[in-house]
């Protein structure tokens, strides 16, 4: 391993020179971990995530991390992540579909415990029936946990979001976990061009004392420390303590927005802001939506793209503003319930403008033609389509 020097966070994320590599999404996530000065990672196998934690294990073997182990299962892995984070080190883990659900109790408690962990979510079908294919239904379970949730479109996003996730999570006014999701296989196992920061530069180490709550390390006064006392007495003070703690967690998640602007250029990306019809999409679906916008331009149709990078905090204000004059809104997704469509519908007025779909699931790809069909319907364009049998 090359000697790595610590550089300023803003420099590494925003200014450092970049070198283009052709790598998979799993490699892109691991390359971010390599540069993130992570102390400890805990792994548990599940397809399609495993590739990421294999590579992170290799980083530990090479000396980039100080500790790494394969846990007993996800609940154990994510609980140990909480313990390690409270001990003051920087931590990373990753999972997929059913693994996320198995560990969800622990994950849902991370924000309340003020655990600034970074979690990779490499999406996969939730059983049953059993399948290992990409489908991002599990993200919907993550949305009410209090964590920041970023959704990467491609390998480049996966690198950028993962590296930025540590910077966002450890801000004193945030200090909640950040999940970086991207589609299993479509991104994790496929190659794309990624502009990487230099291999010999890394983020500054975590400073556990620059935090809204102290680490549990017996290195700070006073001796009597209860960071999160169970408050289950049946009295108003207990209700109040729990209520304000939840308010603080969600306020912290909201405060992450300014760092999402700083490090990711904002929670959404917009193409053709004066469009008549918008395609709103996140993750892999955004790549197909981008293609649909290109098709539309070739056909002379006034169609725009809203790519949603941050699912939590959800950019309600930004989306409402962009969509204020839209005639129709198409929301393609890789899941059956359409969680993104629900989020958008809840954020905008006259939400009958939203077409919830097309949706593919169970691992299917998302043909651009399906998105185009919805655009044609909104614009009243009649298309003859030959079906080849």
């Amino acid at each position, binding site marked *: 391993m090359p000697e790595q020097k610590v550089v300023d966070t803003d420099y590494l994320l925003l200014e450092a020179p970049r070198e283009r590599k052709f790598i998979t999404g799993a490699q892109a996530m691991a390359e971010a971990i390599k540069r993130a000065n992570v102390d400890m990672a805990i792994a548990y196998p599940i397809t399609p995530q495993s590739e990421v934690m294999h590579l992170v294990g290799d980083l530990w073997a090479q000396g980039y991390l100080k500790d790494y*182990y394969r846990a007993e299962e996800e609940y154990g892995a994510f609980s140990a992540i909480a313990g390690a984070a409270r001990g003051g*080190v920087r931590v990373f883990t990753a999972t997929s579909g059913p693994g996320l659900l198995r560990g969800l109790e*622990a994950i849902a408690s991370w924000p309340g415990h003020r655990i600034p962990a970074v979690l990779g979510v490499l999406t996969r079908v939730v059983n049953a029936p059993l399948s290992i294919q990409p489908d991002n239904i599990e993200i919907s379970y993550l949305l009410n946990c209090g964590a920041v949730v970023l959704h990467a479109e491609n390998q480049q996003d996966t690198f950028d979001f993962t590296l930025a996730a540590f910077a966002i999570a450890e801000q004193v006014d945030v200090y909640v976990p950040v999940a970086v999701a991207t589609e299993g296989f479509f991104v994790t196992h496929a190659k794309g061009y990624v502009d990487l920061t230099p291999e010999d530069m890394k983020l500054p180490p975590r400073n556990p004392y620059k935090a809204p709550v102290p680490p549990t390390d017996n290195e700070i006064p006073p001796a009597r420390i209860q960071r999160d006392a169970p408050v289950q007495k049946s009295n108003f003070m207990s209700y109040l303590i729990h209520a304000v703690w939840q308010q603080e967690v969600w306020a912290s998640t909201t405060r992450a927005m300014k760092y999402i602007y700083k490090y990711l250029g904002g929670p959404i990306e917009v193409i053709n802001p004066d469009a008549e019809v918008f395609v709103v999409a996140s993750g892999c679906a955004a790549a197909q939506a981008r293609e649909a916008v290109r098709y539309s331009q070739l056909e002379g149709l006034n169609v725009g793209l809203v790519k949603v990078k941050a699912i939590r905090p959800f950019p309600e204000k930004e989306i409402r503003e962009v969509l204020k004059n839209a005639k129709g809104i198409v929301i393609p997704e890789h899941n059956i319930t359409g969680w993104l469509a629900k989020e958008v519908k809840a954020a905008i007025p006259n939400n009958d403008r939203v077409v919830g779909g097309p949706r593919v699931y169970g691992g299917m790809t998302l043909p651009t033609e399906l998105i185009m069909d919805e655009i044609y319907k909104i614009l009243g364009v009649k298309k003859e389509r030959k079906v080849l049998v």
Partner: protein
Amino acid sequence: MGLEYVRITTGFEDYMPKDYVDLVKYGQFGKDYDIQELGTFKELVEEHPMCAGCFMAYFIRVFYASLPKPEDTIVIGTAGCARLQLSQAAVPFIYGNYGDTNAVASGLKRALEIRFPDKVKDVVVVAGDGGLMDIGFGMTMHSWFRRERFTTIMVDNEVYGNTGGQESGMSPKGVQLKMAPKGKKFDKINAVELAKAAGCVYVARISPTNPKRLAKTIKRAIIAARHFGPTFIHAYTSCNIEYSIPTEKVLEDARNREKKDFTFYEWMSDDVKNYFEQIESNKEGQEVKV
């Protein structure tokens, strides 16, 4: 820590709560009291909401009084009665999720070893039979398989006391409890043998009738974990409510159980045995480098 963080900054003595001043002046930090001096020093835990006659409350009192280095100890608990008292002590306490103690302790201990390689930081899990042998079973066992260097103490009241008296894996066979309306169908889990098989280097089973022996067992378990690997104590801490033991009979019950299935048992690896022979024969009982 530890001690420099416990001590009160000069000039601030008059402004700190009396309770805290007493802890620093007359408490256990930096001192090594004998358990028989209990009552003559300021204890780490005093007030708690445990039931009258609770044997677990007594056990936890002795537990805190026996800590070899309280200023550098972190206690981890989970759902159940014990944490109601553990969370009142002047020792940092972590309450995570259901049955996650040994996973949290694994992460925490490793993190502390990364950050403070030259300091002693004792991590001790104190959890119930349900937390360690039912819901947290996999995490308990795997922390032992991985040879994580912390102590696990099971306060076994043979029931889910805090949720209203349901059967646990540690309830004796035949006992009628909630969720076992026809009586429990299988024997108590043999936690001590599991701990040995899973790689614990020091294992003890105890009915806390003799405080001196109890204190020694707790000290040994914590000190052995610093150097050699996982350690485990299985302690009988009856639930006088769910098992209808009159308050004045609680100690008698513990003595009866001691004669039956809770006879004192202590097992340790040869390395640990040699180590204790070395440190316990030296007059100050001081630790030596391993």
